């Protein structure tokens, strides 16, 4: 027990360190951007409309004061950490004065909804078929499914998404091409609204699953085919354990453990957003928000999103690390 406490303590330190370094690096890079949010706002105003040089100069000065940019980098860095403690990222510079947390809060439910569901679905599908394919390695149908999955896996995601989009909105237009739900609907827990959300999520989630199952499939197949040759499986088989029980309790169960680690990592990673999915299918979410923020040099928003992503992934790693010794007795906490 004592060694476990020390182990957890070490992990906590590691977690804190990784978060600190990761966020600091992003802070530095975002502030190196050559784009000045004030100039961006000035250009936005003057591209259309007035352009009298004196007025532009005055506008620039007042925006600089308003946004509070151009201060000492070190001070900004300290203020940033102070604010982060309360999950306040300050006002967005490209949607001033709306708080960054409000913008993220509005986009993130979509990201979590779409990506959690498609990550978990691809995990289940990939692992179950992969497990079966590993066990019944001579089954022809499973081999063909395996070939298809492995063939699809390496195709760049953009291409898969784009082909699906063209196929189901243009060639055979049966699915909506963009948005999270139908126009003029008011969000709420109504059947109509939920139905609309589901309909709009078919293409994005299908594309993610199509590309996602491959790696789970291959990982699981490899794990299972290793376990199948392990002695205890052979003994159980000779001892007359029914095949169904053999597959589920003896083989799959053991193979699932490392895959759970992978699942936790993937769930942590969903806070990166799915930039391409959102881009291609016009789906709401934080990936798109991030790209727009980068374009507008809105570093408060960029930092807000990346900080959340870094914390989420590190937290996932951390949680796996501390839970693992409890569920898998083979892991020794001393290492």
């Amino acid at each position, binding site marked *: 027990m004592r060694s476990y406490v020390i182990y957890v303590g070490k992990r906590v330190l590691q977690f804190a360190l990784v978060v600190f370094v990761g966020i600091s*690096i992003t802070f530095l890079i975002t502030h190196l951007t050559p784009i000045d949010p004030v100039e961006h706002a000035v250009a936005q105003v003057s591209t259309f409309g007035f352009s009298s040089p004196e007025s532009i100069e005055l506008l620039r000065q007042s925006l600089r004061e308003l946004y509070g940019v151009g201060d000492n980098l070190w001070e900004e860095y300290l203020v940033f950490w102070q604010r982060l403690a309360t999950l306040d990222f300050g006002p967005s510079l490209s949607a001033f004065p709306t708080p960054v947390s409000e913008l993220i809060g509005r986009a993130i439910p979509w990201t979590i909804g779409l990506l959690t569901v498609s990550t978990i679905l691809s995990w289940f599908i990939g692992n179950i078929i992969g497990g079966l394919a590993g066990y019944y390695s001579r089954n022809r149908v499973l081999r063909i499914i395996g070939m298809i999955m492995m063939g699809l896996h390496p195709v760049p*995601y953009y291409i898969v998404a784009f082909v699906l989009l*063209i196929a189901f909105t243009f060639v055979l237009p049966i699915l909506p091409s963009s948005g999270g739900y139908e126009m003029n609907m008011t969000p709420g827990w109504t059947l109509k609204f939920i139905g609309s959300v589901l309909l709009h999520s078919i293409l994005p989630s299908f594309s993610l699953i199509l590309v996602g199952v491959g790696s789970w499939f291959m990982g699981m197949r490899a794990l299972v085919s290793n376990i199948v040759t392990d002695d205890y499986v052979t003994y159980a088989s000779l001892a007359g354990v029914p095949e169904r029980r053999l597959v589920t309790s003896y083989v799959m169960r053991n193979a699932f453990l490392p895959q759970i680690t992978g699942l936790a990592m993937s769930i942590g990673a969903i806070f990166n957003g799915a930039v391409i999915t959102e881009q291609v299918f016009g789906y709401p979410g934080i990936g798109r928000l991030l790209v727009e923020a980068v374009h507008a040099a809105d570093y408060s928003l960029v930092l807000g999103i990346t900080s959340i992503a870094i914390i989420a992934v590190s937290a996932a790693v951390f949680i796996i690390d501390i839970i693992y010794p409890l569920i898998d007795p083979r892991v020794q906490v001393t290492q």
Partner: protein
Amino acid sequence: MIAVFRDLFRYNGEFAIGFMIMVIILGIAAASFFSPYEPIDSYLVAMDAPPSAEYVFGTNSRGQDIFWQLTFAIRNTLAFGFIVALISRILSLAIGLVSGYVGGAVDRVLMSINDTFIVIPLFPLLVLLYFVLRDDMTWFVLALVMAGLGWAYDARLIRSVMISLRTREFTNTSVFSGMSMPRIVTQEHLPYVLPIVFSTFMNNMNWSIGLEVTLAVLGFTDVDTPTIGGMIFWANQHSAMVSGIWWWYFFPTLFVTLTFIGLFLLSISMNEYIDPRSRLDRMGNS
């Protein structure tokens, strides 16, 4: 070496297919040196001609012959993937070996750095770097950046292999027989680690090429250097899909997919080759 290759080719169908695909791909890439056109010049041939005897893969809306464009694109894309994989393999090998072998404080520091790289969201970082570097972000610089970001997972893998090797019997034997540390690592341990390096090499190439396609499609790369992603970028600029110029997407997609499958088959066949159990299984059944 040749014997290994013959073995693989004979007993491993995946290797044979993967190898042949890569030979074709490399052949096409090599053809770029005989191209009659400069890759970035446009409006040289008729526009929008479908595949025919004259233009095997058709021409695009920029008046370029897609076959010759593709030769350059494949060459650049492969070179890109190769450079990323090469540099990131060197990094992960060095860091994994040192970390796993030396252990202690060095290991902890290196693995902290390593874990930081694992959690930093890659895509936003690349986009940000594109903005910071702007036109200095040539495809070579992009390759360096991606190599700098693509080593962390595999370094961890190599480290864990090293840790298990270090505790094995034969290491102790070598130590007692007076072999020096660098010699033990290079002569005794490296043979176990190198296959991992090779198989992750292919995976890493797949990863970096896929990311390059994504970035190019979004316009975050140097579009003047023809790559597979760059070809799709230009096709999008001309709305090729809705104007029916399907061959402008089809051939780049086909060949990048083939490249991926080829690399992938090579990687899994290598994996099987280095795993003795499945190797025995295979030979016993053939």
